[in-house]
């Protein structure tokens, strides 16, 4: 449980089970539980987005891990969009915060880059724009 008050506590074990159906180990990627996505990042995610807590709890109450499938998840969207959104957002956010997952998909986060602002002179000199310029004006004249 992540919160003292049981009415706002999230059943982590249950969420992990659902998360493994949504994000199983496959195609070289780890499952949600293999990278301890929920266990490691749930508190952080709900710290940032406390508004997701109650709809997430609703989703956990409605979806039984014993019978949960990807099809059941799709069907749940039509039933309760807010709870569905909370579940998918929290699971995805926890998973893609994992450094292991980020490393595997090659995502370093949104990083600052440096570049030469005058590098454009090279592709202009190489003629990248020449065909556009050679075709001439394409704007339509209008009476004043």
């Amino acid at each position: 449980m992540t919160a003292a008050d049981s009415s706002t506590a999230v059943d982590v074990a249950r969420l992990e089970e659902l998360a493994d159906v949504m994000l199983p180990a496959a195609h070289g990627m780890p499952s949600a539980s293999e990278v301890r996505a929920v266990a490691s990042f749930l508190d952080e995610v709900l710290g940032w987005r406390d508004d997701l807590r109650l709809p997430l709890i609703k989703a956990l109450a409605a979806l039984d891990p014993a019978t949960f499938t990807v099809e059941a998840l799709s069907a749940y969207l039509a039933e309760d969009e807010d709870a569905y959104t909370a579940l998918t957002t929290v699971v995805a956010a926890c998973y893609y915060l994992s450094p292991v997952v980020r490393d595997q998909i090659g995502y370093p986060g949104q990083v600052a880059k440096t570049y030469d602002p005058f590098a454009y002179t090279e592709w202009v000199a190489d003629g990248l724009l020449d065909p556009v310029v050679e075709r001439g004006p394409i704007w339509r004249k209008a009476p004043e």
Partner: protein
Amino acid sequence: MTYRADVLIIGAGASGGVAARHLAEHGFDVVCLEQGDWPDRSSFPGTRPDWELAIRKDWAMSPNVRNRPEDYPVVHDDSDIEPLMYNAVGGSMIIYAGTWPRMLPSDLRVRTLDGVADDWPIAYRDLVPYYDAIDRQIGVSGLAGDPAYPPHDDYPLPPLPLGVAGRRVAEGHNQLGWHWWPEPNAILSAPYDGRRPCVQRGVCTSGCAEGAKASTDLTHWPKATAAGARLITGARVNRITLGSRGLATGALWLDHDGVEHHQEADVVILAANAVGTARLLLLSADDRHCPDGLANSSGLVGRRLMMHPFSVVTGWWDDQVEGWQGHFGASITTYQFYETDPDRGFVRGAKWALSPVGGPLNHILPMRAGNEVWGSDHHVLMGRTFGRGASWAIFGEDLPEESNRVELDPDRTDSHGIPAPRVSYRISDHSRRLMAFQEERATESLRASGCQETAVASMIPYSGWHLMGTARMGDDPASSVVNSRQQAHDVANLYVADASVFVTSSGVNPTCTITALALRTADLLVQRRREQKVPA
């Protein structure tokens, strides 16, 4: 203590900031009332790990989702598009993408050229000196010589990087024989006016912590206040007051605690955007002088709302292009299908802007193109698409219709109990034809650029970032709200500086034109100050 200002500006966003700086620098005593606060760049989420979570709630583009005290709700149950905006010093520029195209000569003459809607009472030529001046104030990065435009002054800064995706699509267009050009952006490619350049982090629509993306809290308000303008934040205006001679005398406003104040002024300028300005004019109705709303003898206040139907076509290559990185903003643009071609079954056209696709959450919980996929196929999808894509953002020209409008909602209110605006808006059949054509061409563009896979998100509802037309400009008081100087026909000391005055929408992002017009309005006020009627 109340005092009377020369000019009261309502709204400290794009248009308000530009007008305030020009007027203050020309000796006017300016007061601005802004319901939001100064933005705190250290709180912007783009450098934080929760960035993609924040943009779905506290930093959402929709005021209804953010639901901060300074936001007012916009009721949009009867609208195909949800209006989006930001309420703070700098206005919606805090979260805008920063693409900075000018309108084209034909945009102001659609009645004459295409037999639809109306011509503007001004011409492209009237805007050019103000476009040039505003580009220098803002610090625009771009490349002159685009054959889609009449020749104009060079931009103050070199264009931003094309990126891998921009380069590939440029080459694709060269093969197709289609136009492309580096997009002008209100984003610095090099240091300028004490500001730092863009670092390509790609989080522009949740605030630029670097300060590289222009917004008037950076580019205009510091200079306006240095010249003596007074900016009062946390000040929500609920009515423009009228005097006995039918002139505006100022505005009533509420502070954070709900205490009402009156700011008096000789001239009032509305700069609250096309939803906020229409709302205020309607809120200022008065049974004796203007029962249907202030400056509304034409009945057009709130009507002719235009929002640019918006589609996204995303393409994915079979290798990495770091599709999460790069200004957002656009790297390149095309006007290949902008001007009218009668063979297409519609008039006018659309402008496209090539943008990054965002981080992992945006791929799997897409706000633009793509589907949610769970289970083992999720990893297949991510493997195929993540970091490999770019999106054509397509802005279709939206022709004005009187039934598309802003009214006051009878039930919903903001946190001060002031009636909220209600937006009714339908995308027309004409727009649907126009957008379907553009989506097909954009798919061809990305295929020709080497993309293996493409997806179309057609006319997405969460896209009302361009708000225009609710107090249109015109020469005839019977069919327009303001004249060509943006002065209300009915109230000689009331001006509208924002895109409410747009007669038609063009197919380009509006803020370059909004700010050029705001500068022009302020400049004409300075030039004609002696003729200006003011209350006794």
